């Protein structure tokens, strides 16, 4: 049978698909390290306390939010403060469907409807902006204003008139009682809570990461990067820049929506505080700190910053924000490309020095190696 050869072919094509100049991590060493980390994550519940595992599922859910911004901003050049809006809209939508339609069917429907509504919202907003000639920093501010409008509106939806079926939007206090995501018809055969939610989030991240690598190294991904680098040039090569931006923005909305659904199933609750100015800036911070032109950077930075925040709140108390801010400042000043590209440059610099026998002290760190 030819299955062997075929699967090797499929695998080969897959390996080809996820490599290319638009993403970091080509070498055998990289994939070895990747494997080690993946293994550490898969076995995470074995050597960690339960609270660490459940908290980690929250961070993993948030990495998808960070990736949604990395795709939109880091790879297509559209800085959006609105990812939290799609995140929250999906969270609320999932809540409304999940509370109203009982059983696992309701939650599965909720997942799809929520991601769909988030994508639709992004598409409408994106159409309004991109086809209306709004660009650059104005997109950024406009998305921020949209978030603020949504928050001001949701804060006051406490009364009974803001009840959709069984689900009360709940105003500032938020919407409690959102069910866990479950698979099955009638009786659930798999409910995503605690450990299962952790694995679901981990799987979602892994699939998203590899999928995005494939996307970014595809023809379409090359066009995205081309738009980031030079919008006019790309238009003049015959690409419909508005449509590509709209498509990517919509996709980013859907990914942020998926993140939102995972996040609310962790909390079983959502409130407008996800739309505060602080919350809206967090994805930007994660992506900027990690390295916006990478996929690994935002993932690492999201987990690290969130975990560090918890660590500081437990151990440092009222100086936590100061330390957080200082770290941010130092990274932005010293590593403007982000933590992960900075580390990579450092590693290759050390590698170069070692190759040269370590005697040559004049070697400059070569920031412009490759991207």
């Amino acid at each position, binding site marked *: 049978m030819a299955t062997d050869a075929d699967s090797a072919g499929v695998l080969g094509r897959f390996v080809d698909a996820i490599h290319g100049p638009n993403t970091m991590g080509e070498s055998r060493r990289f994939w070895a390290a990747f494997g080690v980390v993946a293994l550490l994550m898969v076995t995470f519940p074995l050597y960690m306390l339960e609270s660490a595992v459940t908290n980690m599922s929250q961070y993993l859910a948030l990495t998808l939010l960070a990736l949604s911004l990395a795709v939109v901003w880091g790879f297509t050049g559209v800085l959006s403060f609105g990812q939290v809006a799609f995140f929250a809209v999906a969270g609320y939508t999932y809540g409304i469907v999940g509370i109203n339609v009982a059983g696992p069917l309701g939650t599965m429907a909720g997942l799809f409807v929520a991601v769909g509504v988030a994508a639709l919202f992004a598409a409408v907003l994106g159409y309004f902006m991109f086809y209306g000639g709004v660009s650059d920093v104005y997109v950024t501010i406009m998305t921020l204003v949209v978030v603020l409008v949504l928050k001001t509106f949701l804060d006051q939806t406490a009364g009974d008139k803001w009840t959709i079926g069984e689900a009360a939007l709940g*105003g500032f206090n938020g919407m409690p009682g959102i069910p866990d995501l479950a698979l099955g018809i009638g009786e659930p055969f798999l409910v995503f809570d605690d450990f299962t939610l952790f694995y679901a989030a981990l799987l979602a991240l892994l699939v998203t990461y590899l999928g995005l690598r494939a996307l970014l190294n595809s023809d379409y991904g090359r066009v995205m990067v081309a738009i980031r680098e030079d919008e006019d040039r790309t238009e003049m090569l015959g690409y419909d820049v508005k449509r590509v931006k709209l498509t990517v923005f919509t996709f980013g909305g859907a990914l942020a929506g998926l993140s939102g659904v995972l996040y609310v199933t962790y909390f079983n609750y959502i409130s407008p505080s996800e739309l505060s100015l602080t919350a809206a800036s967090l994805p930007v911070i994660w992506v900027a700190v990690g390295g916006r032109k990478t996929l690994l950077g935002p993932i690492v930075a999201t987990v690290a910053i969130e975990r560090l925040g918890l660590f500081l709140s437990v151990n440092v*108390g009222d100086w936590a924000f100061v330390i957080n801010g200082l770290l941010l400042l130092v990274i932005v000043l010293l590593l403007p490309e982000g933590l992960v590209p900075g580390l990579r440059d450092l590693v290759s610099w050390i590698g170069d020095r070692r190759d040269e026998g370590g005697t040559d002290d004049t070697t400059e760190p070569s920031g412009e190696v490759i991207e």
Partner: protein
Amino acid sequence: MTKRVDRRKFLAGGASIATAGLAGCALMGGGSSDTIKLGILEDQSGNFALVGSPKHKASLLAIEEINNDGGINGQQIEYYDPDPQSSNDRYLELTRRMVQQRDVDALWAGYSSATRETIRPYIDQQDQLYFYTTQYEGGVCDKNVFAVGPTARQQLGSVLPYLVEEYGPRIYTIAADYNFGQLSADWVKVLADENDAEVIGEEFIPLSNSQFSSTINRIQDADPDFVMSMLVGQNHTSFYEQKASAGLDIPIGTSTAMAQGYEHLRLDPPAMANIYAGVNYMQEIPTNRNTRDGGFVDRYYDMWPDAPYLNEEAENNYFSIYMYKRAVEQAGTTDQEEVKAALESGITYPAPEAPDGEEIKLVPETHHVNHHMWVMRADENHNVEAVDDRVIDETFLKDTVGCDLTSKDEEKQYTPQDYYEEAG
């Protein structure tokens, strides 16, 4: 040495910087088992620090007093008090950590209702004994939650009848545009009905708003006998300064100002002149337990000489920790279900808010407290005096919707809508 190498590997791998941090924490572990472990999650930084920090301080005062006095049943109290930074996400993370990692025997957590609602699903999942101490809109009927602060109905029920009596029946309501404000405004209507008064105008103010000229204008236009103000947060505090400077001198009743954020001390007089707060406690409450030498106020400032104020919720944290002590002593164990049962046996405590000889009572059926309520008035110079006081029972849950946690376990929050439905 091996450990360092491992860490470097983690760093190279990226995502596990966090892993290394977690491992470090996990090693620290919980305390020894012959202590009683309490979790105190109160905001020491962020937006709610102003009101959260006194709660934190008063909790520590109660714990220190109890420990110095020999502990509970001979066991010392060990407490964990990380800072949730006024963030609901952080509250949930820390609550999980308190429950799973620290295995706390009881938890005090949160200022806002949003925080309570964030962690309540998890509290109920774990059947964790939880004290919520903020004055709030009321209606939580939950077998694991002891909401020991006064409810809007209790607070408004003390001040509104007094103002109707003093000034007349025409009320103008201004309230923060969110759950607490909207529900409180509903309670104002209910109480107005009960006291033959009427609400002639109502405005809800977004939490982010700090400009009040048009609001002041609308109040002047309506010309009510008095205003009921349920404004919340620092942005809204500006209202009092702005209305004074605009010359709006209509009396104002409130359930939110002064007792929590001590506006009468922070704002320049006469911003708070002629404001009447319906509260179960504030630093100026004239009870012997509170103000005598060595009383509650003295002990608080002995321990925290730099503290700016001793607020309403601080006292709620304080007396509820003592109520917990009594319940554990009665149960003879820290087993949470047995302590809950003990708390449901009609525990009382001589709280600082109550005059000598009186104890406030935790109602078994509703997990709420029949508070001794005060009407406190600030004058031109921001001196605060008590003009009225009486015990007000929590009646909404108990009588109107019939919440009885001693016979039926519930985990929900009722609203004034339920009041209307029950009332017919």
